[in-house]
């Protein structure tokens, strides 16, 4: 399993802030998690549609689609940041 977090507008759109999902089979990466999430229902496919800008962090470090995952990792998806 991996922990998946969602923040800000993405959390609101999905109606979910935190969940546990199974580690994808084969070579587990952020991209594989995303492929799995997109198959769930319209909200997830829509939230991660190609025209939407989002960022991902693994274990609290900025990551990308190719970043590998292992059991227990924390994967966070969020919109581009707007602090400061």
């Amino acid at each position, binding site marked *: 399993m991996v922990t998946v977090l969602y923040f800000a507008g993405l959390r609101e759109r999905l109606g979910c802030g935190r969940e546990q999902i199974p580690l994808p089979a084969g070579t587990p990466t952020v991209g594989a998690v995303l492929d799995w999430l997109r198959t769930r229902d319209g909200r997830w496919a829509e939230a991660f549609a190609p025209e939407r800008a989002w960022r991902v962090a693994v274990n609290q470090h900025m990551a990308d689609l190719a970043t590998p995952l292992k059991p227990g990792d924390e994967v966070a998806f969020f919109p581009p*940041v*707007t602090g*400061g």
Partner: protein
Amino acid sequence: MARVRVQEAPFDAGREIAAMTNGRRDVGAVATFVGLVRDSNDGAAVRRMTLEHYAGMTERALEAICDEAHSRWDILDVRVVHRVGPLEPGEAIVLVAVAGAHRGEAFAACEFIMDYLKTRAPFWKKESTPAGERWVEARESDDEAAARWAEGGGPA
């Protein structure tokens, strides 16, 4: 006080500067930036702003930005304080203060930290306007400001 703090409470810029300089005699320059909530943004009135963040990653990201500033400039100390939660127009959101021997490096490092914080630290702003609530969109101008430092140099 810790170099990086994320808090709901207000801060006092004078106290943050004093905490960096009290007892030291090698600091010749402190450059400080304070960001505040404005009552308008992108053409709409802003009644309130709420700041969300990714606890844990925020502190890591800010610490990494401070480390990067120390590696690029000959500076002596840094403070970053960022508020979260609900804020009114006129309230301070963020403070970045950099102490150094000389002013050029203190100014450059302070501006660098702000530019990186704006594009790399996981904070998100939600505005309350007469038309309802909305998440603030990231600005291209902030990406461009951060990109200035990519060559390891920057404008100063």
